């Protein structure tokens, strides 16, 4: 399956692009897809940091299955603020 993964904020700037296109096997999970993006852009985040993923505008677990046409986005930490 091919996905046009959307990147925001810190990830967008580090990748130098707001869309990263990746190909993953048909049984790929969210974690597999996130790994595929990181393989293309190793400087997105340090290896020990998990990257949060949204599928169809909802937070997704790494073991969630993907379907063709899913909108996938990598979500940097939100501001928190005080």
């Amino acid at each position: 399956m091919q996905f046009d993964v959307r990147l925001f904020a810190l990830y967008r700037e580090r990748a130098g692009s707001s869309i990263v296109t990746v190909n993953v096997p048909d049984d790929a999970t969210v974690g597999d897809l996130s790994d595929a993006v990181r393989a293309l852009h190793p400087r997105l985040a340090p290896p020990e940091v998990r990257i949060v993923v949204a599928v169809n505008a909802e937070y997704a677990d790494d073991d969630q299955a993907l379907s063709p046409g899913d909108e996938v986005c990598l979500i940097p930490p939100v501001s928190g603020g005080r």
Partner: protein
Amino acid sequence: MIILTDKPLDPVAVTDSVRKDGNGAVVTFLGTTRDNFGGKTVTRLEYEAYDVMAIKKMEEVRESLCADYCIEDIGIAHRTGRVDVGHISLVVAVASPHRIKAFEACHEAVNRIKTIVPIWKKEWFADGSRWVACEDHEFVDEAEHRHAHAERHAAAAGDD
């Protein structure tokens, strides 16, 4: 009322949207761009949103707060794009028959918004910028570089 916009926010409209004759207490929160962070001068902020999901998550905050605090409605407006010092980036308004719930629900709404709504904040300083809350996503070597740079900077300042 849930608003995501790159235009200036209208706190009065958000507040009025939740006022009802049965409510005796209305609490409104304004988040504004501060002129400093950690001792450094901030020149402006920039907000970027995953807009479809941001609106969905703001709706979730509204629904969960109304259920958890037995209030009728919450108004939320978030600005995107450049927000200069002193300008408003976030408005949250809550009305309730009594003030304790209005204060608690408004505070908790702001906390939830800052936790789950995919909107990112970039602080601009005179000498650079940083995405807020992304510390865990820094690389150690970058952190060391910045630290060494800060030390050199402090030493230089001490020379004056």
